[in-house]
């Protein structure tokens, strides 16, 4: 289980391919905040996102913010939401827009494994609820689009030492979540027998 630092957006596919499930990662650069309604608008309503997602790191978030000017927000408390609700967008995000990393909490179901393998993407697990820490790692909210979806807008954050993240699903077909579930299901059989 190695430690890595990756700067986003990435241009070199090897930056993603070098990561293995279980590795610890710290992220630098720019990340994009996205959530349920943002992705429903892109894929179910067919609206092109007004931000470049190529090589991007997407964070499942709906930040707590304070408005300071037109189109300008300051962070109040920024954390991460449950990813599983948004798993169906994984393949089109990678194929149509070139997204390379999706970060959230709680993991993606197994249906994300194959598209991530095929398209060279990773899922990063963040610690859900650890928003006070996460907020300190977001230096600035640089852009916001689709403000009418507040707080489920498209957000662009500049980050410093964002993490620690754990590679939950890598680009080689491995998933910590699948492994944990397989072991837990076997254990349940043993526990039921003892009841």
């Amino acid at each position, binding site marked *: *289980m190695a430690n890595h630092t990756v700067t986003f957006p990435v241009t070199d596919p090897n930056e993603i391919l070098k990561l293995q499930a*279980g590795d*610890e990662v710290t992220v630098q650069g720019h990340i994009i905040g996205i959530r349920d*309604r943002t992705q429903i608008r892109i894929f179910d309503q067919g609206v092109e996102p007004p931000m470049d997602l190529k090589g991007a790191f997407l964070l499942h*978030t*709906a*930040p*707590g913010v*304070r408005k300071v000017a037109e189109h300008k927000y300051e962070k*109040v*408390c*920024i*954390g*991460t*939401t*449950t990813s*599983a609700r948004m798993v169906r967008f994984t393949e089109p995000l990678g194929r149509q827009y070139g997204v390379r990393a999706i970060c959230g*909490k*709680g*993991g993606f179901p197994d249906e994300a494994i194959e598209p991530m393998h095929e398209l060279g993407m990773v899922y990063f*697990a963040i*610690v*859900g*609820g*650890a*928003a*006070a*820490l*996460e*907020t*300190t790692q977001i230096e600035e909210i640089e852009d916001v689009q689709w403000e009418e979806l*507040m*707080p489920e807008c498209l957000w662009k954050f500049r980050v410093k030492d964002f993490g*620690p993240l*754990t590679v*939950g699903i890598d680009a080689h077909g491995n998933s*910590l*979540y699948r*492994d*944990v*579930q397989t*072991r*837990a*299901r076997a*254990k*349940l059989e043993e*526990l*039921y027998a003892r*009841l």
Partner: protein
Amino acid sequence: MSTVTGTDLQHAVEDVAAHLYVWALKDIPQDLRDALAAARLRETSIPGKRVLETIHRNVNIADRDNNLVCQDTGIAVYTCRVGEHFPLHPTRIYEGLRDGTARATVEHPLRSNAVHTITRENTGPNIGYRLPIVHWEFIPDWDGLDVKCIPKGSGSENMSFLKMCIPADGVKGIKQFVLESIVGAGGKPCPPGIVGVGIGGTADYAMYLAKEAITRPVGTRNSDPLVAQLEDELYGLLNETGIGPMGLGGDVTVLQCHIEHADTHMTLNPVAVNYQCWAARRASAHIAADGSVDFDREF
């Protein structure tokens, strides 16, 4: 002779709600801090240790920066114990709780999560139709009011489960359903948290009891020894599943299992699970009949 008016008391309730909501979001209780510290010592998996270490850092940073522990300001849930002789009717207590929730949301500001359940449009400062949610208990021969605020995060609330077991399923059926629910939930509800279980009553009441169970201080035990024994057993079994912190695998899957129960119909055996995330936020206050407030009284 007291000169406190109903208006004064309603304002006191509003002030208490506004304070409790923000306090709960920023400053997690000591019993929870202790449980998280014990988990951090006990965990042996590498990703699990990483998660618990990060949680520890996060709680300290929330203290240092006077920030929220978690960005999810939740759905505001209150439990109220109203004394028979408390001189403000519950309708006005409810108004005070609602107004205090809204005021805290606007003044801090806090993220507003409340939406119409069909249109999904935001309904305002964490209030709306039937929001906030209040659990009521009425206490005979008493003139006080206890208020507890539980901002309930959605990640854990989404991991709520109900099964109408049959009597022949017995206690074994209850245990299996709780185990299956928590394994199925995996990392989604932000483990390790408090598993609230409600057993008995009716379908709706079992879930109500499960919610009551998650509001108790971590590790307290049901006063019925049979139920307390079930809490101990389930706590042990759940931590054998290996789900681990944030579902990444490990020794600590839950901080505790709390159970509340009610007697039930001879043909019923309902079991409800309501999960509370590791950031199990709660804050309490006592309001006396004269309007004075004690913020350090847990109930």
